[in-house]
């Protein structure tokens, strides 16, 4: 990483560290949601941006994370920390199974299978209301100790930092190189020996587990989990954030997630129509600036210098 970039990320981190002391409770809530989406978008970017497969099950894996942990906590009194861990493992196993089923068959099939899977998860959660409380929402305990937004913020921030650093090292490694090769051209990648299916599966499992982590943390922060987390609406937000920020870049999902979260606070007055605004912005980006904000700004600055 270039020195300037490292410095930039560090400044961002320090700013984030002192933020809770500068803003109101209400904005803190938005920030925590923002961090949740940073986790979601960054991990989805691993599969979509770096290996070129559109998975629609990302929100479903977040749902598996939060419901596993939530149910364990409510029914068996298991502390959220272990619950989230269980959720991650479950999500990893499920994504492994799902990925093994369909990744070898190529793009459209992965998208359709993950779509089907995500609907199955949603339908089961809605119908097994005796366990999940369905659309009524499951009340779960806080991450640990007494409810505190500041605690939640720092835990979320720690997770974001760890995940971003982790993703950074993965991308720097051979695996990351192979991710990008696969995304560029899977036949060419295979012809130089890259095990395409394995590489994609790895990305898929990594993304799924990270989504479960994000979902678990967020659920225990919200104290109430509903089928809204594993819904296509959440999936859309994650997709829109990644596309708007810039797919296939480290900073893209982070920028996109925070940008949309902030935007949503400013256009909240328009109620339900903020989704419409997001979608239109996302469409403009997808259609005219497929490299997203990050890529677009990069080009601008490149042109100037």
């Amino acid at each position, binding site marked *: 990483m270039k020195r300037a970039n490292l410095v930039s990320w560090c400044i961002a981190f320090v700013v984030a560290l002192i933020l809770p002391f500068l803003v109101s409770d209400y904005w803190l809530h938005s920030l925590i949601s923002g961090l949740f989406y940073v986790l979601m978008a960054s991990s989805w970017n691993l599969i979509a941006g770096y290996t070129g497969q559109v998975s629609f099950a990302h929100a479903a894996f977040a749902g598996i994370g939060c419901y596993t942990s939530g149910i364990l906590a409510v029914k068996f009194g298991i502390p959220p920390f272990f619950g989230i861990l269980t959720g991650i493992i479950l999500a990893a196993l499920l994504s492994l199974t799902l990925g093994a089923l369909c990744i070898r068959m190529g793009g459209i099939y992965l998208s359709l299978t993950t779509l089907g899977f995500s609907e199955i998860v949603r339908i089961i959660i809605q119908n097994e209301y005796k366990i999940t409380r369905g659309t009524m929402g499951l009340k779960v305990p806080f991450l640990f100790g007494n409810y505190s937004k500041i605690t939640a913020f720092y835990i979320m921030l720690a997770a974001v930092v760890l995940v971003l650093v982790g993703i950074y090292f993965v991308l720097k490694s051979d695996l990351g*190189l*192979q991710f*990008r*090769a696969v995304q*560029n*051209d899977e036949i*060419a990648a*295979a*012809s130089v020996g890259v095990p395409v*299916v394995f590489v994609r599966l790895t990305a898929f499992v990594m993304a799924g587990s990270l989504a479960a982590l994000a979902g678990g943390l967020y659920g225990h922060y919200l104290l109430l989990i509903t089928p809204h987390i594993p819904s296509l609406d959440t999936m859309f937000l994650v997709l829109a954030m990644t596309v708007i920020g810039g797919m296939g870049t480290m900073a893209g999902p982070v920028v996109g997630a925070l940008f949309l979260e902030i935007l949503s606070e400013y256009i909240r007055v328009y109620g339900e129509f903020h989704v419409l605004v997001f979608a239109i912005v996302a469409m403009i980006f997808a259609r005219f600036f497929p490299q997203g904000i990050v890529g677009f700004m990069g080009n601008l600055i490149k042109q100037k210098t």
Partner: protein
Amino acid sequence: MLLLELNEVSKSFGGVKALENVTAEVQEGEIVGLIGPNGAGKTTLFNVIAGVIKCDRGKVKFAGKDITKYPTHKISTLGIGRTFQIVRPFATMSCLENVLVALSISEKSRSKNERIEKAQELLETVGLAEKEQTPAGNLNLIDKKRLELARALATNPRLLLLDEVIGGLNSYEVGEAIALIDKLRKNFKLTILWIEHVMKAIMQLSDRILVLDQGKLICEGTPEEVSHDARVIRAYLGDSSASSS
């Protein structure tokens, strides 16, 4: 030593027979040309050897091993490298990274710096040393072909499949390319199977030539023999409009 062995390989696409009972051999150290009119099934044959397409019947053996059912990446690691007729570089990655991808598999045990050194060497060999940081998508066609060559070499192949590497070059460049291939063959101790439309090149460089027509192997022999074979002449003349391009 027998390196590649094709035994009655057949493949059809929805009723159209792309390959029909193709049986052929390539000896270690040979350079074998594969020619034939457009649509004769040359690229399909390459895809079958490389494992991108699975044949319907028949067997492909490499260095004594039956690789018919192997996945592409495994065939690559066994020692078959290839380039593509329509170039397929990793467009968003730099030239160096393109080669490093291959090295990350073939030179797993080496350190990162050693790999970078090797990649730079390979790029230099094909004449891309100055462009190692350029995104592959920004290269011109010739350079893309060079890059594919470097990338294929990075897999440490014993057999190299070259699909029209010379096509689209002017006569001066063709000369250069022939020299390069010859050099590579010697330096890397390669066996080469190549598809080419530029007759001059293929006649000049090949030890042996295979001729495909409508999925069938119609002739096999030295350049001399092939160029006088009646079946070959008929195949080309019968399809002159397509092959003259």
